[in-house]
């Protein structure tokens, strides 16, 4: 299953370790699908997920930069373990901001010099200051800006410095999706609520993403929305809060409320397609896939706000010399506009959108970033029409979405404990 999912570069593959995870010592790890071309040009190795490790991007980057690039796509946990234990196995690591603490703590990545980032000044305030606009909510948990700058004491913080822990680039908001053929369509930001995940009416037809650093927040947002419990800091729950949260969740599970958890985007698609689930945690590619199948899946805009994630590109501590320079070139290329426009067509945002805008049509920009109805049919990166004229992206514009962030995907201090509780929840 995992291997199969690994072969789908346009889907956001999460948490798939089973089929794709390499085993053994770090030096013995061997990835099944190396996309490479070796010659005298510098070669960089990029470890990450299928969200950004797409061959079209690699080819374009190689063409533009004149370097060799090897992609090592894998499941989130798999690549995180690799990156956190073997810095010599990669030059760049592309994953989520919630992995930064682990990597920084594991001391496998090195600070990135801002001076070497060509488009640093264009990066918007979402990553730099935590708010995309003055009225925006920062969001609980590890908002990327809190982990962006390398501090003088070796820690990560929001105080500006000359070095950063990651290059901000791809990001998006997540919520839950529901089948409007079964559940009455709600009003975005008004009636749509994370509390729906615990609505008794949907008993047996609910699923969560199988990731404690993600699904845990969906559960927490749902319990809070229904007034079942509150958190001192949802972004960093205590063991007691986890106990209470999982007591509630296990109770729901015992009553058959949850169909289960899903471990990949295709799995989540199948759950809703087959009718096993009518509402669940979702990623945007799954929603698009279901709509393409004719299933009216709505990607909710919860009134409590989104669960956001931010892609990060980290530089291996072992990357030096020519490879390091090539890695910087690749980071700068990512912010050069074309890649931002490319991933915009897949529903993702880039940290310097204005540069990407130059590579997008007016209609594309209006739909993907401004939340306006599509004035014409829009094609995805595969060349097929993915948006019909008149269609409106749920959640509105880029700004509106990121003004409503409830929590960021976060590896909490109670991460290990949450794993144990998660196991209890899953197997109940």
């Amino acid at each position, binding site marked *: *299953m*995992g291997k199969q999912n690994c072969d789908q570069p346009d889907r956001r593959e999460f*948490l798939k*370790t*089973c*089929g794709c*995870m390499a*085993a*053994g*010592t770090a030096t013995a790890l061997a990835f099944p699908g190396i996309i490479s071309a070796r010659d005298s040009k510098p070669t960089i190795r990029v470890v990450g997920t299928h969200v950004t490790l797409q061959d079209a991007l690699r080819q374009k980057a190689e063409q533009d930069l004149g370097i060799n690039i090897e992609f090592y796509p894998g499941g989130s*946990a798999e690549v995180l*373990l690799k990156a*956190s*234990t073997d810095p010599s196995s990669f030059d760049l690591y592309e994953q989520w901001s919630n992995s930064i603490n*682990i990597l920084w*703590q*594991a*001391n496998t990545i090195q600070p990135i010099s801002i001076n070497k980032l060509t488009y640093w000044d264009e990066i918007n305030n979402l990553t730099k200051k935590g708010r995309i606009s003055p009225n925006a909510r920062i969001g609980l948990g590890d908002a990327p800006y809190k982990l962006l700058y390398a501090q003088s004491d*070796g820690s990560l913080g929001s105080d500006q410095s000359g070095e950063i822990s990651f290059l901000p680039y791809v990001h998006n908001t997540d919520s839950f999706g529901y089948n409007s053929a079964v559940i009455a369509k709600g009003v975005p930001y008004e009636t749509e609520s994370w509390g729906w995940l615990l609505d008794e009416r949907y008993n047996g037809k609910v699923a969560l993403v*199988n*990731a*404690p650093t993600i699904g845990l927040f969906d559960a927490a947002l749902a319990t809070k929305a229904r007034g079942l419990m509150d958190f001192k800091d949802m972004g960093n729950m205590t063991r007691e809060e986890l106990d209470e949260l999982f007591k509630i969740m296990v109770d729901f599970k015992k009553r058959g409320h949850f*169909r*289960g*958890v899903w*471990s990949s985007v295709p799995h989540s698609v199948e759950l809703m397609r087959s009718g096993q689930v009518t509402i669940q945690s979702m990623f945007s590619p799954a929603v698009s896939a279901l709509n393409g199948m004719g299933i009216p899946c709505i990607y909710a805009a919860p009134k409590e706000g989104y669960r956001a994630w931010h892609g990060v590109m980290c530089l291996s501590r072992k990357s030096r010399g020519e490879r390091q320079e090539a890695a910087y070139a690749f980071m700068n290329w990512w912010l050069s506009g074309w890649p931002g426009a490319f991933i915009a067509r897949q529903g993702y945002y880039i940290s310097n959108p204005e540069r990407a805008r130059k590579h997008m049509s007016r209609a594309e920009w209006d739909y993907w970033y401004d939340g306006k109805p599509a004035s014409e049919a829009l094609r995805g990166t595969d060349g097929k029409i993915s948006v019909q004229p008149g269609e409106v992206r749920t959640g509105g514009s880029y700004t509106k979405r990121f003004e409503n962030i409830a929590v960021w995907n976060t590896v909490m*201090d*109670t*991460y*290990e*404990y949450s*794993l*144990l509780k*998660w*196991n209890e929840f*899953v*197997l109940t």
Partner: protein
Amino acid sequence: MVGGLKLKHKIYAGYLSVGFVAVLIALVSYYSFGNVSRNFRHFTDFSVKAQIDFQLAQRVSEMQRQALIFTYEGHDSAAEQVHYLYNIMTELIQHYSGEELKYTNIINIHLKSYMAAFEKLQQQRQLQHTLVYDDLRQAASSTESHLRSQIKQVYQKNGDKQRFEIQRVLNNLLLIEKNAMRYFDSLDQSFIVKVEGSFSEVRTRLRELHGGNEQQDVRMLITDIGRDLDKYESIFLEAVQRTRGYLFLVNVVMSAEAYEALYNARQMSDQIKNKMADIERLTLSTLQSVSYIVAAAIVVAFFLIVLLSLLIGRSITIPIVRLTTAFNTLSTGSHQEDIPAYNVDDEIGDLTKAASIFKEKNRQTEELLSQAKEMTEELASNKVELERSNDELGQFVYTVSHDLKSPLVTSMGFIGIIQKLSKQGRLEEAIGKLDKVVKSNERMGQLINDLLELSRVGRIDMDKVHLDLNELLARFHSAHSHQLEEAGFTLNIDANLPQLYANESRILQVFENLLSNALKYASNPEGSIISIGSKEQEDAHLIWFRDNGRGIPEEFQKKVFGLFYRLSADTEGTGIGLAVAAKVMKFHHGEIWVESTPEKGATFWLRFNKHDKEDIHD
């Protein structure tokens, strides 16, 4: 429905129909028992599957439990148990087929993913174990050894202050190991923070020691300790990540795979239970349906038997009853009874034919009886006729003898006279009397000739042909025209006279006798007229012969047809002509009679039957 069948076929059909229904009931029963048996086998199969399914679910749970034991306790036996359970489950899955394959394939995929993750977990845990219990301790010992070595040197060369600082570093190193081990025991991240804090503390103090120490060998030793410390920290951090890695595997990846396997096993179990319930319902339904069908078939069979019995019975008894009635009637000799129609070639058909034959025989018998009766009546009639003929013959003999005797007496009288005259010599006078004798003899001869002619009628020259009466009478008129003219008679013959089937000479004889009779007795001073004509009746031709003479008194109108009867003794003739005519008409099965009013002529009627053909010849 069965009317067209032979009797034995009806009986066969009845038995066959009942037999067919019986076989049908047997087949339905066989089919239903087959179904029930098949359902029972399915039910048994599903029971086995359900049992396997239960074992499967149990083993998945046990497998995850053993995996957790291995994860947290590191017992190799638990890991072996996981592999053992996986192999058992893989074998269990082989027992499924059909629709369950959909689930077993999914379960198999999840179990394989589970085992792949578990194998990685084993590797990660082994690596972590090595890092924690070998590398980490070795690094801790190495670092501590270097530190103690430094303490020894510092203790020998420097004052208590540095020695105290080094001792504090040593304490921090011990704290690192202690907190590190506490993290791996408790998985509480706060210990990582403490470990990291201790590393930071150690480095800070070492930097201070390094900066404040001018001895080259001590500085080198501190640098070595710094390297040891980096390695120590690196081992710790990797061990942390490996720990997190296998914790993620067992708590997130494997638990999800196990849950999916369990979920699908439960779905399969539900499906199996549903199928078992379906089979149970189907079996009960089948049994109920079969009960209904068999009951219905028995009722149908009963009614069929009754219906067939009625139909066959009626189809047999009704014709037999009808035939019985017919035979009863036929036994009375009747042939008027209609034989009931029965067109089937069977025993009743044979009886029906026999009845028809019986009826025909009755008819023939009756006809024979009728003929016998007719013959008896005819015999009686003939007897009367014979008696009458005998009387007539007696009369005839008397008449003939009387009338023949008369000329003979006359002749004998004249012969006596002649003899007397001769004796008296009165020869001339006697010769004169000879004429009288001759005449008397001639008359007797005439009488005898006429009697001969009379006797010939019916015996000689009596062949009948189709006669055109117009032609015959035309010739008759022509032949007697001179005689009529001499007698002063006019003969008128009507046209369009009928054709007759008769003997031409005898019919001509009748008309000649009637003409002779008219010429003798029917002269009319005002002009004698004879007319012949005809009149048609439904079954006869009536020919009339009419004169305008004096007529015949009523009392003589029958007598004139008697033998030797003459209306006047003065007229010539023997008195046999009309008797001959009557006999000719009788021979032709006809009649002759006369109607007459005195002085107004007489009309002789000749009646010929229209149907008197050849058969009358007898």
